[in-house]
């Protein structure tokens, strides 16, 4: 396997952009990443793109083909990756594998999304063989209620309070307001979060990420190409994908088996463990982590599930300020999904951009001092998990 570097990143801001197509959002991100890398479009040898279910892609998730047609059809191979909300991270893993395996020297990874309003709908197919249809028709429990069930269980098991969940959102906005790409850039008080509408008890409106539009891109290349392009590359120390285990105990469908141990996102834990192992990095050695905080619950649960801290310890680390960029376990210095909203398939690439800026020391007010190694993690429908470790 060859060493792989990230040499250029770019983003379109997150928000709602009614008068722009997803391909236009991607164009901004790709052009910014090319400029950051100091290369031109014709230098790109392959494209690994996230497939969107919601926008562009000719209805087939061919979003990478849209990007290539828009930037100029050079005839490069295009890999369109579908993995639910982990698609951006899966595309990164494919791009990484192509470079590491020697197939290509310079690959563009891109994810873009324009989301419809409101709760993410099910497939729309009324099929009694589809467990998701049965779950919605017979019970009625959209995405936020899944997160709420996990959050309530944690409260009973570890004593997390509603105020602590609210404090995660306060902390996210305290950092995210400094991020020019974030959709929500204002601070909230604890009272404001606690007074926001209860969506799915115990989770409130400001504690759940809404859907957004956005796009992100990254240029990755071989070590040889990186040395030509920059004196300050960021290295891909680990890149892994995984799927959920049968017996992890999360209430994903209608029913499963009662697990022997605690329920957890096995796809996320496996991808993170593989990426850390590949990088030769202990969880406690990480300088920063960008994790998928669809809800504030995850910012407490995930660091514990992956060994960044002990079970039940995340609450006190939060209250002590240790998850801020200047703390000893910085989580989501970008502001995370809470400040960005979720442009589903773009999220995994947005995390690469943030880690890259952090490791270069270009993150301004949200900079983690002296950051040398960072973790990015995302997961998606179907039990797809992905993780990346980047190093100076």
């Amino acid at each position, binding site marked *: 396997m060859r060493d792989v570097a990230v040499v250029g990143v770019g983003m379109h801001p997150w928000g709602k952009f009614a008068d722009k197509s997803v391909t236009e959002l991607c164009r901004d991100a790709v052009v910014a990443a090319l400029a950051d890398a100091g290369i031109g479009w014709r230098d790109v040898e392959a494209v690994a793109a996230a497939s969107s279910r919601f926008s562009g892609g000719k209805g087939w998730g061919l979003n990478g083909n849209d990007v290539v047609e828009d930037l100029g059809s050079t005839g490069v191979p295009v890999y369109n990756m579908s993995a639910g909300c982990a698609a951006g991270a899966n595309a990164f893993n494919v791009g990484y594998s192509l470079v590491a395996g020697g197939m290509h020297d310079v690959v563009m990874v891109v994810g873009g999304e324009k989301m419809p309003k409101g709760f993410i*709908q099910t497939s729309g197919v009324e099929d009694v063989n589809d467990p998701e249809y049965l779950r919605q028709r017979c019970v*009625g*429990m959209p995405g936020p209620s899944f997160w709420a*069930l996990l959050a309530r269980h944690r409260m009973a098991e570890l004593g997390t309070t509603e105020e602590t969940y609210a404090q995660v959102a306060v902390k996210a906005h305290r950092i995210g307001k400094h991020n020019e790409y974030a959709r929500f850039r204002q601070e909230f008080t604890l009272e404001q979060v606690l007074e926001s509408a209860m969506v799915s*008890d115990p989770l409130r409106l400001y504690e759940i990420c809404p859907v957004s539009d956005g796009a992100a891109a990254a240029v990755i290349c071989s070590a040889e190409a990186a040395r030509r392009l920059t004196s300050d590359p960021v290295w891909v120390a680990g890149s892994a994908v995984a799927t959920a285990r049968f017996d992890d105990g999360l209430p994903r469908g209608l029913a499963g088996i009662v697990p022997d141990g605690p329920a957890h996102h096995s796809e996320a834990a496996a991808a993170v463990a593989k990426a850390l192992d590949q990088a030769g990095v202990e969880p406690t050695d990480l300088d920063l982590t960008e994790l998928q905080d669809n809800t504030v619950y995850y910012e407490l649960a995930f660091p514990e599930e992956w060994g960044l801290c002990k079970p039940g310890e995340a609450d006190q680390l939060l209250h002590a300020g240790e998850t801020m960029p200047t703390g000893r376990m910085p989580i989501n210095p970008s502001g995370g999904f809470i400040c960005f909203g979720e442009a589903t398939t773009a999220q995994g690439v947005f995390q690469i951009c943030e880690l890259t800026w952090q490791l270069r020391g270009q993150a301004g007010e949200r900079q983690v001092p002296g950051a040398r190694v960072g973790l990015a993690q995302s997961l998606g429908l179907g039990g797809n998990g992905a993780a990346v470790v980047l190093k100076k």
Partner: protein
Amino acid sequence: MSGPRVPAVEGLFTDDDGVARLLGSRCATCGTPYFPASSLCHHPDCDDSATEDASFGPSGTVWSYSVQNYPPPAPAIYDEPYEPYALAVVDLDDGLRVVGRMEPGGSAPEVGGRVEVVVGPIRTDDDGTERTSWMFRTV
């Protein structure tokens, strides 16, 4: 006067003999429970694949609960005007972790509390037809 009772989806549950049960299957080799029924065993450690019909419930313990404070999108069904309902994840004594609504009007669930499966309406149509599903009742 209430009208006829029709399951929201046929074949998933019964309370014909007065006790509510979920209708699924169980692996004949490793015992893994399935709801809804699966004709094959999907446990990665099980080399065999034959399952047999099995029913589950009614007794279990609450793993977690929530309240659906906003109307869920289609294909969910509910009475209008919308009234929030409680949801629960329940570990049935026979080894199945299952999701469902709490029975409307019942006492609030607690994590670790005991419940039983019942069958009740999740929506009543204009003509009085009750669309039913499995739900949980605090005991």
